[in-house]
């Protein structure tokens, strides 16, 4: 009985992977056939099932672009960049989206160049480096305890100090790289225009922001989201008007 359930679990996992692969391929086929609505549907499916799949989001962005849904396209490209910060093509495509929208916006990276480099290396690499450096620390501690009052003691103390700093740095990098895709710090306006409210309940808006604008998410309320606009203003916008990156 136990082995049967194990077999079924393995089979189910294999089947679901196959279904995702199929959706991805179907999306590519639909895109090649210029059936962009179908491509959007297929890539949305893959993105839902595999929220870490950068290629699926990139292709979803392309499908949205071709379908002239530029706000959604920017969102998909931004998500793709978030999952794969080394992606150099998505920013160019985002710029093209902004050109099509002609509302004066341009691509602003969500993270600094240093962060992009750190996240681009990937949490697994940082984890491996952390493990290696922990072995070096172990060796230094062992040597330090073993060789007392020798000329090497100073060297081992210095080495241990440097290794400890590296170790902490690598751990922070590994953690932040692993947690970065899960943070919903930014959002993209996907509605043509989104009214901005000064508080959570006001019904009349003072001004609007345009499709494709990137906003910094501050907090989520029932139907509205408190956001900070690029110029620093804090406003509330309707949840349905934006998609989280």
């Amino acid at each position, binding site marked *: 009985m136990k082995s049967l359930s194990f077999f079924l679990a393995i089979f189910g996992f294999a089947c679901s992977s196959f279904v995702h*692969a199929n959706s*991805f391929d179907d999306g*590519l086929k639909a895109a*090649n056939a210029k059936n962009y609505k179908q491509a959007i549907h297929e890539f949305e499916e893959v993105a839902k099932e*595999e929220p*870490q*799949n*950068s*290629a*699926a989001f*990139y*292709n979803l962005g*392309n499908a949205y*672009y071709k379908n002239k849904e530029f706000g959604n396209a920017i969102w998909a490209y931004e998500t*793709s960049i978030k*999952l*794969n910060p080394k*992606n150099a*093509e998505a920013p*160019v*495509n985002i710029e*093209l989206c902004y*050109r099509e929208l*002609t*509302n*004066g916006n341009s691509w602003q990276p969500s993270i600094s160049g240093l962060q992009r480099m750190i996240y681009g290396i*990937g*949490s*697994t690499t*940082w*984890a491996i480096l*952390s*493990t290696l450096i*922990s*072995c070096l*620390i*172990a*060796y230094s*501690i*062992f*040597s330090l*305890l*073993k060789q*007392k009052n020798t000329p090497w003691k100073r060297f081992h103390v210095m080495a241990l100090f440097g290794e400890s700093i590296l170790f902490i740095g690598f*751990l922070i990098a*590994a*953690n932040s*790289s*692993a947690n970065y895709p899960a943070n919903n710090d930014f959002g993209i306006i996907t509605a043509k*225009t989104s009214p901005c409210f000064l508080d959570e309940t006001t019904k009349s808006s*003072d*001004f*609007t*922001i*345009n499709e494709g604008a990137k906003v910094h998410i501050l907090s989520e309320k029932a139907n509205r989201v408190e956001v900070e*606009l*690029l*110029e*620093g*203003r804090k406003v509330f916008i309707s949840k349905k008007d934006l998609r989280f990156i």
Partner: protein
Amino acid sequence: MKQAFLHSVFLFVALCSFGQKPIVILEVEPKEAEVGEMLTITVRANVQGEIDVDLPSGFIHGYEIMNGMNQEIDYNTGKVINYFYLSQNGAMPKAGTFKFGPAYVKKGNKVYRSNTVTVTIRKENTAPVTNGNEITAKQLRQPAFGIIEKSKSVIYEGEPLILNAKVYSIFDPSHLEDYQEYKLDGALDKHDITTSSRITVREEKIKRNTYYAFEHDKKVIFPIGTGKFTIEPFKLMLRRGIEGVPITSSSTAIEVKPLPGNAPKDFIGGVGQFTVTSSIDQTKLKQGDVFTLIVEVSGYGNLQNISEPKLNLPKGFVVYGDAIVKEDIAFGSRGAEGKITYEYNIQVTKYGDLVFPETTLSFFDPIKEKYVQISTQTTTLSVQKNAGFKISDNSTTTLVESKGQDIFPFKTSGEFSTEHNSIVHSPVFWVGVTVPVLCGLFLGLFWRKREENEVHVVKKQEKQQAKVGIQNVFSEAENALMNQDYTNYYGLIEKGLQRSMGLYLRNDDSIILSKSTILEELRLKNVEAAKITALQQLFTSCEEARYGFGITPENRDALIISAKQISQSILKA
């Protein structure tokens, strides 16, 4: 007869001149005014006396009262007439038609009367004075007030807006202090265009009243986003010498309209008035040569925010690298004004007489409220065939040509590496990271402990050997006693004791310490006083016996026993 007539006429004129009738005139200005608006009442009379005016009930007297005398020439008679006048200002607090006067001039027992004047007072116009900026009636009642002057109330997104603080006062100000500028939320791009740090005061009339006015803190602002924006008021302290009036201006609002949605493909984001020109450094080329195209966009508006124009290159022309952009922009009352030049390096890959196409771009004209397309001239290039020239990389050429026109293509699933589940969140990673560190620590401690144990054992053995050595010294002393070699006997007892103390105090029995040092260090180590005294007595007895002071045989034999006991008891401790 004729002579008699002329005489009568001269006599009549002379009588009229000498017996001139007293004149009292009442004047009120203006004849039509609003509630609260200042009226000036003037009484002029050619007789000097006490002046009194009948004023309507409720008339509020102002502070400006003037009286005096002026002289006027009567051109009929050629005589100079003295006019005495009294002038006073004031206002009516309610609307209606009011009769002012008559005015009376009392001289002695005689009273001279003036005319009356009817004045119509309208209700106060609470609507703002509109010269594009709002001045309320409340502000006009204050000694000084400020407004935020704006070039427009409704602008298009990207259009420059000129703002400045404007101050009006009924007194001539000397300077201002503690200025806090007006604020516009969301004004991402703002530039100061104030030409001078000094204020220039000039007189301005508002509702027939004269004010001293000056402008300050002039800025050109490019609001971001669309909708209604409020400009928060400025504050300052307006001074006339040491006296000051604090001023908080009124706030104002602007509306930023979005640009129409039908933007052309070549829209560069410009809002204002722009022109475009282009030049090519050479028109006679060889196939494969690189020439320089300079596209210059000039004008005013949001010039600093425009995008690079898109080059519409046909096959046969390849752009190398990004354009070199040079900006020559100054900010003024028309926004950003100047020119931006884009310098492109273009390679010609075909030969023959080639037409280099015009560069087109569009901007939004806020006056015409529509997109305007402008373009440069086409240029004909004469390109000679170059047999040695080959297009090295077709794909690169295609990419460069197509870049900016279409997105990068779709990707297969393997083209981007994706971390599906980061190992950082698994316990394996944390175990893998911490175990080596802990292993190193425990191994090191274990190693150290073991080494310490080894050292301890060696030291213990050494100490044991030393004790045996000391025991041997005392045995030699016993032999010396048996052989009646007393001098040697006392010396060996002292030697045994010194070695014992060396072992005890320095862990080394080969170190021979002086007696005084031994006793001193034993005291410092808090050894029992009885033992120290016994040891001291032993040393004294040995010395005395050795130097012939005499000792009983019983005491001599007992010395070795006491020495052994003291040595053992101290070493045990």
